[in-house]
């Protein structure tokens, strides 16, 4: 019986981790539904980007207030996790504050965790106010209605509760240490929770132990819950920001990908010696379709980006189309891509590993042509994204489908393209008049 708590702890820990690993597997499978893309080039630059943008948060601080607050929560998250390591060891071995022998270093660590926890609470409150009291424009756009908005608040509540549990645990522990209760070794300094401990004065030892144990258990249970909440939430960015910044395009943002399948056809058309009846080489036949109408037509890098998006809306608030009241929102492009991918994933799960046609696709059912045609390809969204997501590439892939598969460009664009085809200029001028400007000078 003595080892019951340890066993219970091990069981809960393992199932928490098992459930998480299972979801990561799903995530990998879904991302793998995307088309192949070779991103094995220039590793050193990719590592550098990841270190600078994800680890170093370099693009977060473009907006100083949100950036500074975010860095606090981020540091809090990473550093306080050292404490989680101690909690796990204590839980498994039945020890208490197993790192206490570190002495002054331990005191310093606990103090640092406490101060960070306090700062995280401040930041989380500010974040909540920005979303719910100040109602900053980017947090109340149409695509944020319902679940996305609740999700955003939910994450803040979980973080708040976790920090309070951490501090309450320390406060009760501190009181128990002062009362020299057995098992509660004197260790750590408590610059923040000592004030909470003040509120616990007069509580009997039994109650203090109850508070300490309850807070300790709820804290670790909360962490395991949060770990598993990630997959169902926009909060996956805390993990995926790293691969996403690593795999993001290294080309100048103005460089759009040249479609190889088109290159082959163009070569065939322009090469006088090409044999149009020759059998296509293995693996070089025309693709099933040009461009993208569903998530499986996108590359896995784009799908990874969709899961990475944390719906901060910096892209949308910088988007000239969105700023002037058009329907396009780059954030919605990413959210739609993720939601459709999840739908496809669930379809595969429900049908024993194969996708059964559901009569839906990303185009029209999620993203309308009106949104796609409002884009000016200005790259403001790409520049704004703190984790190197490229919504523009998805917009362009979907435009390719509309134009090359469906001939569904707006009429004026068809006229423009007709002009290029016939006269080599987007306007109806004769190519032979191209040097006329020199004459009338």
């Amino acid at each position, binding site marked *: 019986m003595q080892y019951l708590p340890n066993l219970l702890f091990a069981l809960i820990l393992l199932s928490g981790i098992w459930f998480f690993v299972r979801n990561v597997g799903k995530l990998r499978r879904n991302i793998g539904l995307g088309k192949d893309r070779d991103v094995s080039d220039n590793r050193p630059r990719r590592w550098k980007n990841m270190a600078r943008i994800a680890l170093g948060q370099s693009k977060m601080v473009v907006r100083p207030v949100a950036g500074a607050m975010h860095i606090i929560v981020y540091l809090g998250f990473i550093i306080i996790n050292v404490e989680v390591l101690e909690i796990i060891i204590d839980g498994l071995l039945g020890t208490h504050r197993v790192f206490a022998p570190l002495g002054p270093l331990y005191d310093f660590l606990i103090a640092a965790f406490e101060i960070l926890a306090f700062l995280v609470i401040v930041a989380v409150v500010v974040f909540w106010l920005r979303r719910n009291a100040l109602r900053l424009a980017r947090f109340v756009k149409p695509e944020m209605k319902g679940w996305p908005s609740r999700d955003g608040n939910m994450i803040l509540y979980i973080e708040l509760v976790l920090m309070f549990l951490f501090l309450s645990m320390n406060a009760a522990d501190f009181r128990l240490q002062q009362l020299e209760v057995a098992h509660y070794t004197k260790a750590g300094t408590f610059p923040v929770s000592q004030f909470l401990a003040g509120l616990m004065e007069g509580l009997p030892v039994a109650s203090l132990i109850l508070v300490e144990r309850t807070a300790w258990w709820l804290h670790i249970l909360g962490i395991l819950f949060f770990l598993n909440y990630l997959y169902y939430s926009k909060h996956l960015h805390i993990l995926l920001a790293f691969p996403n910044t690593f795999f993001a395009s290294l080309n100048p943002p103005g460089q759009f990908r040249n479609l190889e399948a088109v290159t082959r056809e163009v070569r065939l058309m322009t090469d006088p010696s090409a044999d149009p009846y020759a059998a296509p080489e293995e693996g070089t036949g025309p693709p099933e379709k040009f461009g993208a109408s569903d998530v499986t037509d996108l590359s896995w890098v784009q799908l990874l980006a969709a899961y990475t998006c944390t719906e901060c809306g910096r892209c949308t608030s910088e988007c000239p189309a969105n700023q002037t009241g058009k329907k396009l929102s780059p954030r919605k492009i990413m959210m739609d891509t993720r939601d459709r991918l999840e739908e496809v994933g669930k379809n595969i799960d429900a049908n024993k590993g194969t996708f059964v046609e559901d009569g839906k696709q990303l185009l029209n059912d999620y993203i309308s042509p009106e949104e796609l045609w409002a884009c000016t390809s200005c790259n403001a969204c790409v520049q704004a994204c703190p984790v190197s997501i490229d919504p523009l590439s998805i917009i362009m892939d979907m435009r390719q489908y509309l134009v090359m598969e469906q001939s569904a460009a707006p009429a004026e664009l068809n006229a423009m393209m007709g002009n290029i085809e016939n006269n080599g200029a987007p306007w109806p001028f004769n190519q032979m008049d191209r040097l006329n400007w*020199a004459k009338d000078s």
Partner: protein
Amino acid sequence: MAEALKIPTMAEYAAEGKQPEVLFWVGCAGSFDDRAKKITKAFVRILTRAGVDFAVLGTEESCTGDPAKRAGNEFLFQMQAVTNIEVLNGYGITRIVTACPHCFNTLKNEYPGLGGTYQVMHHTKFINELLKEGRLRLEGGKFKGKRITYHDPCYLGRANNIYEAPRELIEKLDAELREMKNCKQRGLCCGAGGAQMFKEPEKGEKDVNMARTEQALETEAGIIAAACPFCNTMLTDGVKGKEKEGQVAVMDIAELIAQAEDL
């Protein structure tokens, strides 16, 4: 305007067995659009003054395919690209300068993958180099103290990370450069990119060019400097829409330099 412009073509150069120092890629707007043609001529005057040995393709030039690609017609884009590359490679072109950021971006970034690799420069960068090499001198007196704001073309700035070359030129004019609320990496688009130039905007509260023009007018600058023929059109329309065309001029950087030098 004193001297007549001499515009040599690549065909003429090839006939004489000569190779120019640089090819001036004029672009569709620069060739056909009445407003942009003035920019083309201003740039040619600068090239002539600096003694740059340049040539144009003339009737052998064709759309780079940029608007087709951004509109989703990869097929048409690559047809254009392959045809242009054949002409450029046929003449053995190695250096290209252009006054259009869209042509610049496409030639520089998207042609190499299709067999056309050149050293491509935007005219603001090229003029800057002429000044640094001492081939062009700038007194700048004409614009001394005048307030100028600069609009970053998306395909020059964000797309290709060129923010300083145009600004350095404005500063060389001894003008007071007043930045807009959104500038450089956070510059606001004029509304023409992504083939929007050739279509009506989607339904919304206002047009993008008006939003940008408002930012430009907030600086109370008398001149809005642009470095792209399409931005120029959009902002000129915006200024007209605000009935400010009497007070505020939209000018290309090349025009500013040419005017400063009485070219």
